[in-house]
């Protein structure tokens, strides 16, 4: 299998990471060597194996549905790069 520049551009779009030509070529090289390494898994037959989704063989605990922390607005907004009163500010989305 080989990951071409078109695929890199596609993944970069899905990842929301901008990639120029030079970076795309470097990434294609790196990803190809990593995926060559990963391909080793195809040696194994796994048709009848249950996928492991959690190592802990416990069920999730239930809890009562009650508010435990409130009035955190200032804390939530404190680290935002740009805010206006109680809102996060982003570049204009709707004209």
């Amino acid at each position, binding site marked *: 299998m080989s990951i071409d520049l078109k695929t890199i551009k596609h993944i970069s779009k899905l990842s929301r990471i901008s990639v120029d030509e030079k970076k795309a070529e470097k990434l294609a090289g790196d990803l190809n060597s990593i995926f060559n390494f990963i391909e*080793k898994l195809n040696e194994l037959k796994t048709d009848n194996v249950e996928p492991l989704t959690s190592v802990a063989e416990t069920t999730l605990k239930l809890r009562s549905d009650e508010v435990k922390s409130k009035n955190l607005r200032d804390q939530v907004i404190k680290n935002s790069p740009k805010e206006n009163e109680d809102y996060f500010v982003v570049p204009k989305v709707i004209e």
Partner: protein
Amino acid sequence: MSEITKQSLSELVESIKSKKLSSSEVTKAFVERSEKSKELNAYITEDYANALNKAKKFDEKPNLDLKLPGIPMAVKDLFCTRDLRTTAGSKILNNFVPTYESTVTQNIWNEGAILMGKLNCDEFAMGSSNETSFFGNVQNPIDKNLVPGGSSGGSSSAVAAQLTPITIGTDTGGSIRQPASFTGTVGLKPTYGSCSRYGIVAFASSLDQAGPMAQNVKDCALLQEVISTYDEKDSTSIDFKRNDYSKELTKDIKGKKIGIPKEYRVDGMPKEIEDLWKKGIEYAKDCGAEIIDISLPHTNYALPTYYIVAPAEASSNLARYDGVKYGFRAEGENLIDMYEKTRSEGFGAEVQRRIMIGTYVLSSGYYDAYYLKAQKVRKLIKNDFDDAYEKVDAILTPSTPSSAFKIGEKTNDPVSMYLNDIFTVPVNLAGLPGISIPAGHDAKGYPLGLQIIGKAFDEQNILNIAYAMEEKINFKNNITDWWIK
């Protein structure tokens, strides 16, 4: 002053409890040594003035019943600390000041310890040499221009150089045990679910675990006792009966069955690692353990599995860094452009590479071939351990396939860097506890570690085995203070 920093955590606790030393004296000694050790670059953020103030306050009204009374401690910069910048080694969190505290660090402060600062690490804990940190690489106190391992490289360097009596790291694929092995220190990765993940910057949620990094096994047991608690803020935290690990620590391991997995004898493994392993087997026998040959047949598939599962989870976890809610933002022409520039400028090369791998393996048309396949192989790897534990109580392996390497030696070849974690990754995939203890030196005089892997929730047993073997090994770290002028 230097005598204070040479003491182990247990000795310092005893000195403070018996009023031979005050918290201020101890804190001042570690702050002064840290200040003289800037060349190691172990710290990202220093908080010395606050630490000295807290120590003074502690001494005014000392509570000597606590487990860590007035003990200064620096922690990996992946743990959120209220009101103190937490960067995860990334530009994207360069200005992030948490408004909340991680459960693990809160547990530590509740027992009387005092925060000295935040320690360097690979960006988002993605690396095996601390070279992916936005804040620069860290020096291994063992030798100049030697990596301290990673991702908890600032932590391993700081403990080995005695800038902090003890510390905590996180381990997703080996990030506590490999740096401990590279610096001649002890590092424990607990069972998945033992320590709360609340307030730890997430990398791969099904693998991440916090754990202690220490100068000896006893100190390690004491800190594990403090940090391991059930926490309802982490839905994967497990409510099991935890031991008083330090109090129950014993060197009596007579009759314990220790497995030696033949698949860990990998191609191209240096002879000195093989010799170290043989020596370890002899030490275990001397302690009264019974050695049994076992097989973990899917060992060779662990790294490829890890490099699907971990990046997949990372790509989801790191989607939150969008320049909107916190962290770095790059200006863009529109919203999408802002996202793309923020993430392109904010993340380093290794993090971008892993996000891309993760995004690809989860993308439409590839999910079954990669992610589902990896989850199935992960099951086979866990089954290997389950089968082995029918016959043995613990497993002994080398911690790493080599000693520490030079800064820059492996940065251009991601796969060769990934191979560092070949002995540690299977343990994370199976959710088991593992401890690395220093066990010898290579021809260059660099430390080498042995790993003891336990059954789930059986930390006490591997701590006991490590404690017994530590005495027989009688390891001495060769640290010359070369960085202090």
